């Protein structure tokens, strides 16, 4: 019945709005996935605890807001720093021992995610928490029939800003040259005095920090629960893999997936949309396991 009962009739304005909303969904998937893309693309590490880093970001925002009365906008950089430091800690204690063993990183980080979920549960209890967003973000943008809430727009802009910052760091700074060198050929990079371990640490911390910011933003859309991160991990991975583990690829894949999700759920419902989407992804990966964009990336 779920398919047939309410097969929404096609209506142009509303459909265009659905496309517009697709972009909004895409920005959420993208910001959830961008840290993962960087970590996986650079280090070959499958970080199953990425969703939990998002969760930590959300809880950090909650703590900063509730106990230190820090305004939301200021929370974002602070969350980035705090979660980065935590990421650094994880990298030094666990991830570092597992380079060149990608499947093992997948398993170890799954264990880590269990610890983080339960740890947060023990500290904050089971009751949900929430992040309040500043009231000036409670506006709506209306462009004719197109409609977008201010906070969504804020997320889109924040995502764009973070992507731009990441791109700038990667392609316009000497630091970026180092990271890309390690990505392309770790041995050669180290022959030029680049300490790949240090690059990995900082890259991981950076990816973790991005996840933290994503969490801070998601806190404005939904409740904070210790296991909120697990809801993002599958989508984030699919964005990364479909995109081909590159920044540009992730942008394209999140837009495509976000639009498809929006269009499917426009015509049917959210659950069925997921089924169709996941099946399409499996088929896509069968024919293009290297993802959408593959330019010269060295796989491990």
């Amino acid at each position, binding site marked *: 019945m779920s398919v047939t009962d309410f097969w929404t009739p096609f209506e142009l304005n509303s459909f265009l709005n659905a496309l517009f909303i697709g972009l909004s969904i895409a920005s959420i998937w993208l910001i959830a996935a961008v840290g993962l893309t960087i970590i996986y693309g650079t280090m070959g590490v499958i970080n199953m605890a990425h969703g939990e880093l998002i969760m930590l970001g959300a809880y950090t925002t909650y703590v900063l807001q509730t106990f230190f009365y820090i305004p939301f906008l200021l929370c974002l950089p602070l969350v980035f720093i705090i979660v980065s430091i935590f990421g650094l800690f994880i990298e030094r204690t666990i991830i570092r021992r597992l380079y060149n063993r990608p499947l093992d990183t997948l398993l170890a980080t799954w264990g880590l995610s269990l610890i983080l979920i339960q740890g947060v549960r023990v500290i904050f209890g089971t009751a949900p928490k929430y992040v309040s967003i500043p009231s000036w973000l409670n506006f709506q943008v209306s462009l004719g029939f197109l409609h977008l809430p201010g906070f969504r727009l804020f997320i889109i802009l924040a995502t764009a800003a973070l992507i731009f910052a990441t791109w700038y760091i990667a392609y316009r700074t000497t630091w970026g*040259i180092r990271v890309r060198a390690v990505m*392309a*050929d770790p041995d050669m990079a*180290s*022959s030029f*005095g680049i300490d790949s371990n240090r690059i990995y640490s900082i890259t991981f911390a950076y990816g973790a920090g991005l996840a933290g910011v994503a969490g801070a933003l998601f806190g404005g859309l939904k409740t904070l629960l210790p296991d909120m991160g697990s809801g993002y991990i599958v989508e984030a991975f699919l964005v990364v893999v479909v995109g081909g583990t590159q920044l540009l690829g992730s942008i394209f894949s999140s837009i495509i997936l976000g639009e498809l999700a929006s269009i499917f759920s426009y015509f049917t419902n959210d659950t069925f949309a997921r089924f169709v989407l996941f099946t399409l992804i499996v088929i896509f990966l069968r024919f293009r396991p290297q993802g959408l964009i593959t330019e*010269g990336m060295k796989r491990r």
Partner: protein
Amino acid sequence: MLRLVDVTSYYGKTPILHGINIDLKKGECLCVIGRNGVGKTTLMQTVMGLTTRIDGKISIDGEEMTQRSTAERAIAGLGYVPQGRRIFGKFTVRENILLGTFARQGIKAQIPEICLELFPYLRENLDKKAAFLSGGQLQQLAIARALATDPKILLLDEPTEGIQPNIVEDIYHTLVRLNKNIGITLVLTEQHIKIAKSLSDKFIIMDTGRLVHSGTSEELTDDVVNTYLSI
């Protein structure tokens, strides 16, 4: 300058080099000779710290290097031009050379004049993607990149392999200049006996991971070549 004492080197658990001894003075040029697959590249990688495990001792300028990481060795003054160049194709020429400067002491992120002076082509094409360079140009870039690290010792693995003859000559002159005029110690592996003989002060011959013969370049006679290198 570069000293290897009884060095054994491993990939995984398998030893590839056995008990290598080398002693090289400042400004000397050593040529490593041997057939394909006898461990010449491994020797380079061992010096650079790119193998899994090393027994024995490696020192540069008296400074102990055996347990140091590759990056630390590069900073200590080892420059590396690997076999097949291993240029970063997605990087521009400028970025490739800049990579080298990260191993410098002092000023970084600035391309040293010497790199561009030696290879005018690179100066004119700094913003070109390295993937579009020809083999000889890539080799020039690889040498420029290694020079950017301000090396005391330059390791060159097959610098003339797969390059058209006129450029081989260019590279030969460049190496002479680096060694004789600037005083950089060179270690190179070379298939062309002629080049090896005229460029180097010393040679060693390797076979199946062992050092089987060594001497000054005058001692690299046809007899020696026939004994160790004939097929």
